[in-house]
């Protein structure tokens, strides 16, 4: 229990991932939904770092590095999209976003 092993990190990562999933599923405000996706990526980052640490291998850290880059890019594009949408509709609620269905 007191000895923190890889499994602890993995479990933590998983719990955070699950929280992220909750956020993804329950958020209707797109901005807040994007927060949740950040949580997803971050949770994984912890695990990567931990694995990297326990295996003494750098690849995991590199993965984290790239994930951060990706997350940052996604934010840019995501916000861009939200801005366009917001300009047109004045809201960023995804419940207003269902003209296409079936």
């Amino acid at each position, binding site marked *: 229990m007191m000895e923190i092993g890889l499994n602890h990190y993995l479990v933590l990562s998983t719990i955070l991932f699950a929280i992220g999933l909750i956020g993804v599923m329950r958020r209707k405000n797109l901005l807040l939904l994007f927060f949740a996706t950040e949580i997803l990526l971050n949770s994984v980052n912890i695990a990567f770092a931990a694995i990297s640490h326990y295996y003494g291998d750098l690849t995991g850290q590199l993965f984290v590095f790239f994930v951060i880059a990706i997350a940052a890019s996604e934010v*840019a594009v995501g916000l861009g999209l939200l801005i*366009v949408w917001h300009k047109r509709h004045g809201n960023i609620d995804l*419940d207003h976003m269902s003209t296409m269905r079936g």
Partner: protein
Amino acid sequence: MFEAIAFYLFAFLTTLMFFITVTTSQALHALTALAAGMIFISAFFFILGADFLGAIQIVVYSGAVMALYAFGMMFFDTTREVKEKNGNKYIVFGLSIISAVLVVVIFAAPIVTNNIKALYPMVKGAGNTQELGMVLFTKYLVPFEVAAVMLLVAMIAGIVLAGKKMDLSLTLMSDAEIIDAKKEKTKKVLQ
């Protein structure tokens, strides 16, 4: 011992922060909690000896990303309470809890770590940043460059999408309207 305390402390904190992020109805709270969570995560990186990542985490996430989000929040005017209609909460929680439990059940068991050899082992005596840099600019040079391209793409995308040109939609305008608009535009924009 210290490690354990730190782990549990930060584990608790990140979990709490993220939980607040996904549950609160105050967008500002969410943002703040997220930022805090990000910083707490960087703590893990430091614990795990990934100093560079910890730094990056703080700089990129808590700095750049959060700034962007904060900007976005102001732009979208979501600072006040967010009203979200939720259909069936149980589905959401049910699904997430099940998923967490499932994964946890498996991860609770130890992983067989035979036959694993570190391809890019940490080098004694070198700083974390130095190590990473070494690998990044040899083995991961190509991904790194691609990531650069990706950021360029994201930048262009952001500029294009948020740009003024998107306000008029050529897609929806007839040819005559487009010609008129062009004349207008040359006056305004190209001056």
